[in-house]
């Protein structure tokens, strides 16, 4: 193979066995399933408090021209946020531990596994974790009568995309961390992301600051889940999807390259 071909298609960057990484995590979390489940409760508690308190004060909100009660407006956003949380939990702190301290990836890279396998496996696992939360959340929504039609099931693949996007960004970002103190940055970023992604009020409320909201991947995810839950589809949703897909792919490629530069010096 010529040097040029190798640069464009490095053989180590081929994804062959990312599921092996996931197998390892399943073995670990079989004993620690409570930790996995715990991440689901935060958005759930938000939903219950919104429904009980705020919902009665706010009244109806417009979604795609449709008037919906406030709790039905907030629930899909919280579902998107739960997918984000699941993905971020796993792709930041846990990845930092495995990358820098437990050196799990060093061990994996001594086998036929390559950097792209490691990155894809980790992101896949984080995505699965986000998806578990999303499914749980959807069940609760249905039980509370907050789902509107069978279209709400479309929210699950959408949450998978949200999970993929945040897991890739989380993993790629974590490869730049110097140590545990950098985890504070994640927490600092997650809070405004959660609050200001048109989660609790429509984007119109942001006025001239709406463009800032549109940078947030969660905003695009929320818009998609909301549309799915109401079964109101429009061409504009393609833009939201495209935004998440492009961001995911870019972050994924960056993540695999970072594993290569960090661990295969």
């Amino acid at each position: 193979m010529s040097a040029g071909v190798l640069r464009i298609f490095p053989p180590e960057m081929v994804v062959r066995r990312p599921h092996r990484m996931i197998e390892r995590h399943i073995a670990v979390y079989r004993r620690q399933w409570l930790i996995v489940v715990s991440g689901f409760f935060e958005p759930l508690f938000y939903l219950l408090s919104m429904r009980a308190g705020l919902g009665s004060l706010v009244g109806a909100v417009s979604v795609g021209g449709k008037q919906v009660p406030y709790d039905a407006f907030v629930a899909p956003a919280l579902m998107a946020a739960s997918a984000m949380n699941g993905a971020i939990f796993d792709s930041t702190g846990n990845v930092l531990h495995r990358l820098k301290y437990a050196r799990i990836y060093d061990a994996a890279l001594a086998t036929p596994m390559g950097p792209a396998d490691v990155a894809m496996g980790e992101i896949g696992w984080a995505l699965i974790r986000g998806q578990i939360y999303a499914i749980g959340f959807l069940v609760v929504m249905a039980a509370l009568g907050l789902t509107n039609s069978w279209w709400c099931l479309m929210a699950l693949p959408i949450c998978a995309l949200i999970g993929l996007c945040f897991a890739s960004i989380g993993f790629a970002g974590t490869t730049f961390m110097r140590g545990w103190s950098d985890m504070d940055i994640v927490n600092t970023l997650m809070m405004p992301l959660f609050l200001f992604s048109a989660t609790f009020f429509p984007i119109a409320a942001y006025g001239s600051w709406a463009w800032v909201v549109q940078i947030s991947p969660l905003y695009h995810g929320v818009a998609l889940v909301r549309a799915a839950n109401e079964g109101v589809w429009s061409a504009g949703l393609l833009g939201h999807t495209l935004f998440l897909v492009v961001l995911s792919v870019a972050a994924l490629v960056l993540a695999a390259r970072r594993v290569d530069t960090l661990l295969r010096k």
Partner: protein
Amino acid sequence: MSEPLIRAHHLVKKFGDFTAVDGIDVEVQPGEAFGFLGPNGAGKSSTMRMISCVSKPTDGTLRIFGLDPVTDGPKIRARIGVVPQLDTLDTELSVQENLWIYGRFFDLSRAECRRRTTELLDFAQLTERAESVVDDLSGGMKRRLSIARSLINEPSLLLLDEPTTGLDPQARHVLWDRLYRLKQQGVTLVLTTHYMDEAEQLCDRLVVMDQGRIVAEGSPRSLIEQYATREVLELRFAAGTNDQFADQLHGLGSRQEALPDRVLVYADDGEAALQEVHQRGMRPESALVRRASLEDVFLLLTGRTLAD
């Protein structure tokens, strides 16, 4: 002669401006136990990382099983076992899970992973600790588990980076015994060490590395014969006076070396040299005649002890 298992020609590894490996030529034959000997920073680990296909050579050619690590890394890694300098055991998994999850990284079936795990736990004398958490194991046990894990794919080439550093003497001997068994089974061993006794025990052939270069090559015995005298006389004088006695020792044996804590006299007949010391009126606090070792070879070649 058969095709060498490892063939490196003018192999170079640079990190920025720093040259860790500076153009080395190495060939390792199947079934051999081969050692890279040298002080910290000599380039041993960098060389090992290139051979284990996790580090790209900056220059030169490297072939393992006749394959190029740059294009066939995964294929090569499927056939080698790696015991890294620092254990990379999975502390979130039990001892046996460490083995079978690692086997899955090599695409072994679950049944095969379990079968080999049972065998390897026995080999590593860890059967009774199968369910233990890794953190509860002693240093020697962890090292044995690392070796067991590296054997899960039944490698024909085993790379060990300082396998016994930090272990107590008893744990080292247990480990050497296990490595010797592997060698008898025909596994090619390549190891780095800065312990002379380890190199003499385990290696058929070795290279001495210093500052990224190979400064000598041969069997432990031949290196000693070639570079050192048959015996060495070790003299200790009162603290701080070694240097001044070094002058008086001039002409004794074939060479003298003043170290911070003692003076070495290289001579084929150590006892005769000691007599001469007494005749010249020197009264060392202690004197010892011993056979020359690889440590002496290293000192002669590089002017430094391995502890530097």
